[in-house]
C-alpha cells in the first residue's frame, strides 16, 4: 500500500448515478473520499474536453457514471456516452495516458452499494497507477 491519495473527478448524471451516490451516503456506506462529484443532467452532457481538462488540471483519474442502458431519463443519452468514451480512451492511449485512468460505468438510483464498489475499485486502481503527471512525463520520455 502506498500513501498516494489520487484525485478523481466523477461526473454523475442527475437522475441515476448522482442519486445512487446520495443513497450510499443516506445508507451511511463508507467509501474512499477520493472521488469528487460534478453533477450533470445526463452523462450525454459529458464532453470529452471536460475529461481532458480534468487531467490537465491535475486529476489522476476520471469516472463517468450514467444510468444503466435502457434506463436513461433522456431515453438514450447514455448510449451516446457509451460510444464517446471508448473513442476517447483510444485517444488517451495514443497520448500516452493509461486508459484505466478513465472509467465509464452505470449506477442506478437504487445502487448505493454499486456506487461504493466502483469508487473503491477506481481509487485502488489509480493508486496503483500512481500520480498522473509523473506518469505522463515518463510516457513522454520513455
Amino acid at each position, binding site marked *: 500500500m502506498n500513501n498516494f491519495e489520487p484525485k478523481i*473527478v466523477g461526473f454523475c448524471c442527475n437522475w441515476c448515478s448522482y442519486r445512487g451516490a446520495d443513497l450510499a451516503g*443516506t445508507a451511511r456506506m463508507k467509501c474512499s*473520499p477520493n472521488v469528487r462529484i460534478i453533477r450533470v*443532467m445526463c452523462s450525454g*452532457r459529458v464532453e470529452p*474536453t471536460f475529461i481532458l481538462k480534468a487531467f490537465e488540471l491535475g486529476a489522476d483519474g476520471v469516472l463517468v457514471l450514467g444510468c444503466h442502458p435502457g434506463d436513461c431519463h433522456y431515453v438514450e443519452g447514455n448510449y451516446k456516452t457509451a460510444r464517446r468514451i471508448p473513442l476517447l480512451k483510444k485517444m488517451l492511449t495514443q497520448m500516452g495516458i493509461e486508459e484505466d485512468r478513465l472509467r465509464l460505468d452505470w449506477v442506478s438510483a437504487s445502487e448505493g452499494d454499486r456506487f461504493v464498489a466502483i469508487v473503491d475499485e477506481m481509487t485502488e486502481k489509480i493508486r496503483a497507477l500512481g500520480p498522473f503527471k509523473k506518469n505522463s512525463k515518463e510516457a513522454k520520455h520513455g
Partner: protein
Amino acid sequence: MEKPKIGVYVCHCGSNIAGTVDVKQVVEFAKTLDSVVVAREYKFMCSDPGQNMIKEDIKNLGLNRVVVASCSPLLHEPTFRHAVQEAGLNPYLFEMANIREHCSWTTEDHDKATEKAKALVSAAVTRVRYHQPLETKYVPVNPATLIVGGGIAGIQAALEIADAGHKVYLVEKDPSIGGHMIQFDKTFPTLDCSACILTPKMTSAGSHPNIELMTYSEVEDVSGFIGNFKVKVRKKARFVDEERCNGCGVCMEKCPWKAPSEFDLGLGERKAIYTPFPQAVPNIPVIDKEHCVYFLRGRCRACEKFCERGAIDFEQQDKIVEIEVGNIIITTGYDPFDPTPIVKYGYGRYPNVYTALEFERLCNAAGPTGGKIVLRDGSEPKSVAIIHCVGSRDENYHRYCSRVCCMYALKYSHLIKEKTSADVYQMYIDMRCFGKGYEEFYERLSKEGVKFIRGKVAEVTDRTLTNEEKGKLIVCGEDTLLGQVIRVPVDMVILCIALEPRSNAKQVAQLFRISQGADGFFIERHPKLDPVATMTDGIFIAGCCQGPKDIPDTVAQASAAATRVLSLISKGKVELEATIAVIDEEKCSGCRICNLLCPYNAIEFIEDKEVSRINEALCKGCGTCVAACPSAAISHKHFTTEEIMAEIEGVLV
C-alpha cells in the same frame, strides 16, 4: 457581467456534517477564495434562521451569488433557491455543495472528509461566478386527457377525471371496453362476480357526457409535451355506422357465419358480425373481415338486409382522428403468458390442460359451457390439478412473481368445489397471500378440503404406469415437504400462467417516450414516492402495464394517476425547464449532427438559414447535443461549458 460578490454558508446539519468535517476550517478556507465576501457556518442552514442569515447578507452586503455547503441539492436546492429569490436574487444565482451525502456520511477519516469538503466548496464557488439569471416560463395545460386502454384501470381513471368535469378520450383497441377483468368469473378474495361490479362502471363510462369512447381504435402518433400533446388515433373500420346502430343485435342473429370467439379464447364461437360479449360497451357490433363471407366471396349481406336502421356500411374506411390533450394516462394492461413453449406441461397437446384465463371462461355463466366446469368431452372432472408459477418465478421465462396466481388458484379451488365434487390439488412453490383478506381466504380454502402439494411440477403426461392412472393426466413432481417423488392422476390441469408485458409494449414505450424495465413493464418515476408518474412529464401509468398486480391495486393506481392529472388541470399551467439548450445561430455551421442526437426531436433545421434551432418547449435539457456540437454553438443553460470547466478547476484545488 457585474463583479461577483459571493456568500458561502457551511451547514453543520447537527452532527451529521460537523461530526466528521471540521466546519470552521472549511469556512476559513472559503474566505480565501476569490470573490467570496462573506463565509459563515450555522447549525441548520435549512431552518428559518439559517435562511434568514442568507437573506440578510444579500440585503446588507449586496451579495449577488450564494453557495450553501450542506446536503444533496436533490433535497434542499429548491429550499435555498426560494430563499435567495425572496431576497431579490434570481434563483439560479445559487449553487450547492453536497458535503453530507457525498462527504461526511461516506467518509470515516475526519481530515480527509474536511479536505474533500473544501474541494467541493471550492468547486461550487468557482462555478457560481459564471451563473446567469434564468427565466422560468409557463405554458397552459389543456384540460382534456387521453387514456389509452379501456380495462378496469382506464375506466376507473376516466370516470374520476370525467366526474370532476373534464373531457376524457378513452381509447381501446378492442370493440368493447372492459379489458381482462370482464373475462373473469369471480374476483378474489370476496368472490364478487366480476361482471356485476364492472358492468356498471363500463356503462357509466359509455354514457358519461365528458367521456368520448374511442373503441376499436389505436394511438398512431404522439407529439408535443406536457399540457399540450397532439395525438393521432386510428379508428379502425367497424363496417357499422356508430351513429345509426341502436344495438338491437338482429344482425348478429341473422349472420350465418361463425368464427372462434376471442373473448372466450377459442372455447366458444361468435358470428362474423359480433360484439365480444352481450354487455359490450359500446353495444355496437363490428364485422370481422377475415370471417365475413361478403368480404371473402362477395355475396351474403344478410346483416345489411335485416338492419332496419341501415347501419351496415361495407364501404367504411379506417379514420384518423386528431385530438389535443394536456395529459396522458397509459393503462394498456398485460398479456397472459402462452404456456405452449413449456412443452413438459402439455398445453396444446393434451386437450384437458387449460390456462387460467380459459378456466375463467369455463367457470363463467356467460361462457361457452354456461358456467359448467367440464372436460372437452362434456363430462365433469373428478380431479383437478392447479399448477402455480407457470412462466413466473422461472429464470427461463420471467423471474418475477406475477402476484395474482396464488390467489386466483385458491379462488378456482373454491369454484371447483362449489360446482363439482372433484378433488383439487394445488401444486405450489410458495403461497403468497399478502393482501387485505388474502391470508384469511387461504385459511378458509385450507379447510375446504383442498390438497396443497409444495414443489415445482416436473411434467404432465398421459403415459400411465398403473390401471388406476389409465385415461388420466399424470402430474409428476416432488413433494418437497415430504421429500418424495409424486404422481398425481387427474382429469383436468389448470396452468396458472404469468402476467407478462403486452407484446407491443416496446412500441408503446417508444410512442409515448417512456421507459421499460428489464422485465418489459413500464417504469415509474420513483418506485416508492412517485409510482404512477413516468420520467416523461404529463404521461402517467396505471395498472398491469407497470407490473403485475391485482384489481384493488390497479384501481388504486388508476385513481392516483387521475388525481395527478386533475392537480395539473386545476393548476392550469406547467413550468418549462429553464435549464435547456440553445443554439447560437451565428456559430451554427448547419451540420445537423445535433438533429439526429435529440431523443425528443426538439431540434429542427431551418432550411433557409441553414442552421438548427431548438424548440424550447420540447427540449428537456439533457445536454447531449451540447457535448456533440463540433462548432460549440450550443450552450446548455445552467450547465454551460464555462460553468462545468470552472467546477472542474475548483474541485481540483
